[in-house]
């Protein structure tokens, strides 16, 4: 057994860290405040090629291995949860096309998605349908060479800026995936405001009103939308969200250490207070534990081991719970300052909360992980 990053991975990690420090963190507070991704952030992510991090080189992507991809999401998550969510949802759509798309779909969409000329968003959740994804109410009916889609999607990350949407609808009563371009007649979006955390995720509601798309926009087979397309997307989603939590936890830890060094109470820096030391220890160990679970899930993905699917559930479950504890402790260490937007931990705390809901709630994870344990142990 060997747990260490390769030289290349270490080099990439340093590159990601520098990028996030210089090009993401300076815009994170403003993006949060204004509830929109600062255009410079998107521009820089595209310029560096990170928007195509998850795609193979043959389509113009960066062809990163799964662990390097994880580290990228950790680092971006350290700087801005909303920017990390862009990599997540764009990747989910790109990978769905890569895995189940036709040759024509791959050739048309993937080079554009790798370059960031096209941004993808994932349309599964609806006003009435969250965890129970198989019950989507949107419908698709075949008519000549088209599918006619009707439905309403909600909470779609990057829905305000995406160019293509992976929409899940019932076709012959079976969950099915379709690509819907933003300029199709009958398709429209409404921006959503007022999110508690990850406020620059540019979420939107999607309206499909007799939206006619060509048959070629079907992804995978009728009926395979959930079992193969969506679940594979969500595996990548969960993996990158878990990594984002590790990064956010790391940001909380680093901010707390910095603050504890300079803040003085009772004539000494906070760092000398043993109860502060206890908090720092808990934070540090929790972040490290989550990171190891993510490395494990990533390694299993890299070697194509089917166990990666459950290990990704485990990693996301632990990491999302972990980051809520860690962010709360970071606020506690910062005291009054931690409750104000002058300090980034206030944003970290709000951003952390989102992670226990997206890509499967903590409770869905508890049901699934326990059922798997009863089945296999």
């Amino acid at each position, binding site marked *: 057994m060997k747990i260490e990053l390769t030289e290349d991975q270490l080099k990439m990690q340093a590159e990601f860290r520098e990028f996030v420090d210089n090009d993401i963190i300076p815009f994170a507070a403003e993006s949060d405040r204004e509830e929109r991704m600062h255009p410079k952030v998107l521009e820089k992510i595209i310029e560096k090629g990170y928007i195509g991090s998850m795609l193979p080189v043959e389509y113009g992507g960066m062809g990163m291995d799964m662990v390097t991809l994880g580290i990228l999401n950790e680092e971006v998550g350290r700087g801005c949860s909303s920017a990390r969510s862009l990599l997540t949802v764009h990747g989910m759509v790109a990978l769905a096309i890569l895995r189940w798309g036709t040759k024509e779909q791959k050739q048309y969409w993937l080079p554009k998605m790798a370059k960031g000329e096209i941004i993808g968003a994932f349309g599964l959740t609806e006003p009435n349908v969250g965890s129970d994804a198989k019950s989507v109410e949107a419908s698709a009916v075949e008519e000549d060479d088209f599918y006619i889609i009707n439905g309403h999607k909600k909470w779609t990350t990057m829905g305000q800026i995406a160019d293509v949407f992976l929409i899940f609808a019932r076709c012959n009563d079976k969950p099915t995936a379709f690509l819907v371009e933003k300029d199709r007649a009958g398709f429209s979006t409404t921006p959503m405001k007022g999110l508690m955390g990850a406020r620059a995720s540019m979420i939107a509601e999607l309206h499909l009103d007799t939206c006619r798309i060509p048959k070629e926009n079907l992804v995978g087979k009728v009926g395979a939308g959930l079992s193969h397309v969506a679940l594979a997307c969500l595996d990548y989603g969960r993996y990158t969200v878990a990594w984002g939590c590790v990064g956010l936890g790391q940001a909380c830890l680093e901010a707390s250490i910095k603050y504890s060094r300079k803040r003085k109470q009772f004539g000494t820096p906070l760092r000398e207070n043993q109860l502060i030391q206890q908090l720092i220890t808990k934070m540090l160990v929790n972040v490290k534990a989550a990171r190891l679970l993510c490395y494990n899930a990533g390694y299993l993905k890299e070697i194509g081991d*089917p166990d990666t699917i459950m290990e990704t559930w485990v990693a996301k479950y632990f990491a999302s719970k972990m980051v809520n504890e860690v962010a709360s402790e970071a606020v506690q260490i910062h005291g009054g300052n931690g409750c104000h937007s002058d300090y980034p931990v206030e944003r970290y705390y709000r951003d952390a909360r989102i992670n226990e809901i997206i890509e499967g709630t903590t409770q869905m994870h508890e049901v699934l992980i326990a059922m798997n344990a009863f089945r296999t142990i």
Partner: protein
Amino acid sequence: MENVEMKIRKFLSRFFRKHELQGNEDIFSLGFVNSLFAMQLVMFLEKEFGITVDTKDLDLENFRTLNAIVSFIDKKKVEV
């Protein structure tokens, strides 16, 4: 041939614990597997047998029973 069946049986046994799976039993109707199983099975088959499961292969009949999966792998191996 036997080797293929043994490998698949071993993988499936992780989900079926004490149940002795028959070659023609419907895996999906026995109540042992959850919604993630289809994806896990595809990953296993691709890694173990060096095949690629394409969209056209996504027919439940290819995966419904142990015997069906074995025939599917045999068919895919010929394609390779």
